[in-house]
């Protein structure tokens, strides 16, 4: 099961890298979203996928899932949500002001500084 999850995370990373290497700003932002999904999936797998019992443990629980990775993912999801939101806003504003979402034209040069 862990191997499968790792492969899925790897596929998400591959898709994210592909999108982030494209020229369109919106695709890049979607790529960052996929990247954080891959990361979160990886983080979940890192904690070990146990037999499917709840993370809440009694004094003498026979089997349980490690709750810490889940707490970490929750934090990381909230943060990546915030970052994506601000990224989208800045990208939209940049599109309005600069009149393009093509990264080639956003390169900038010495002359216009």
């Amino acid at each position, binding site marked *: 099961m862990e191997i499968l999850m790792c492969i899925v995370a790897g596929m998400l990373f591959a898709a994210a890298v592909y999108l982030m290497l494209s020229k369109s700003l919106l695709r890049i932002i979607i790529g960052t979203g996929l990247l954080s999904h891959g990361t979160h999936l990886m983080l979940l797998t890192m904690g070990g996928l146990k037999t499917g019992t709840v993370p809440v443990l009694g004094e003498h629980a026979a089997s349980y899932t490690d709750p810490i990775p889940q707490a970490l993912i929750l934090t990381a999801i909230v943060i990546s949500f*915030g970052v994506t939101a601000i990224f989208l806003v800045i990208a939209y504003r940049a599109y309005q002001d600069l009149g393009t979402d093509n990264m080639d034209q956003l390169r900038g040069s010495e002359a216009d*500084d």
Partner: protein
Amino acid sequence: MINLPILPILIPLVAAIILIFLAKSIYAQRIVSVIASIATIISSIMIMAKVKSDGIQTVDMGSWPAPFGITLVSDMLSVLLVLTASVITLCVILYSFRSIGNGRERFYYYPIVQFLLLGVNGSFTTGDIFNLFVFFEIMLMSSYVLIVIGGTKIQLRESIKYILVNVISSAIFVMAVGFLYSVTGSLNMAHISARISEIGSEPIITVLAVLFLIVFGLKGAIFPLYFWLPGSYSAPPAPILALFGSLLTKVGIYAILRTYTLFFYHDQPFTHDILSLLALLTIVAGVIGALAYRDVKQILIYNIIIAVGVLLFGIATMTDESLAGTVFYLIHDMIIKAALFLLGGIIIYIAGTSNLNKMGGLILQYPALGWTFLLASFALAGIPPLSGFTGKLLIVRSGFAEGEYVGAIVVLLSSLAVLYSVVNLFMGAFWKTTETPLPDVKKRTGSLFIPVVVLVLLSVLYGVGTEFVYPYVMHAVDVLIHPEIYIDAVLKE
């Protein structure tokens, strides 16, 4: 149990929330910002005195005992950096009154600066690796807003790249923390350190070391991960640039210093050799940039990269003396970089351009500014008795003692290059005669100049009063060299 170490994090947080509600009144915002920054400085001085007398201070948040909950740890290194960061923030806020402009002030400039300070102080203080990530994100979020605030075209263009780079490095950070957790089963930095020394030098630990180096190297701008820095840092105005240049990259360096002395000191022939090689390449790359440009901002920005290289070389050498040099140089560099960027801001304000070829002769009308700039340049290059000297001396001496001749010589030569680049800047801006005569009216720079003088004075005192600072720095180095002290203080065994 006292809760002192949390104050430098809590005060900026409360201040920032209050400031959000005061958005309409600029005067109230200015007053609250200054009061909050002074309170942060006072609280960090109190912690410093406490750490000096009683050793490392820890706070278990929510009273969860150490390896399970989040622990804040104030050792001498972190509290020294917290103090420096708070002083710099106060000076930058004072400088911003005149220079940042009403538009930015009304659009939450001051609250965001407080949030930035919160993130920086938190990163320095936390003793939990995931909490470090959270504080990094707070700091980065604030920097996203600061880099784009004002919304000029160049800012919008550069902020996109800046955010993208940092989003990627954050993703790698979370991954690295996940790996570390699956190997050690803990997030508490002291606990991780204890577990890693049980595991010893397994290859997976070395892999983790390199992963963390990539993450912190992206924030700290080491070769070859510095590519984003010159472009992004040239976009925002001088006070924001001063904050970025003096605080953000240094947080990355602090994180490398912390992880490489606490976690990854078992396989030094591999990890620390990489570090030392990268340090030298960083210095060379920075020197090339600093000598190539004829632009006030770019020259100073490439000087950040040189300093990062020097610091990294000190970490890589990893002896008492080199770490003492690194801590000395880290604090010196934070202060002097802030001062230089603020001075650069004044020069650009007076000349109306950042291109060195289009300015000149400013010494006639602004002699005080010129000589202060020269003094700050000498301090940056490390001319004794100014503040850069002690740190560089210790780093170079330990380099020679450890047989790292190439590295030590490169660091020495880099001082010459730094001196050449900043004196070149001085000559270009102040000394050279211009073709076009200067305007007769002198621009008023008094209120901009005062915070800069405070910073330069601080740097001079730091250099002259090395004897007084030395016991504090050695106190910090002691913990870095002996991780057991840190572990015992946190886990209370």
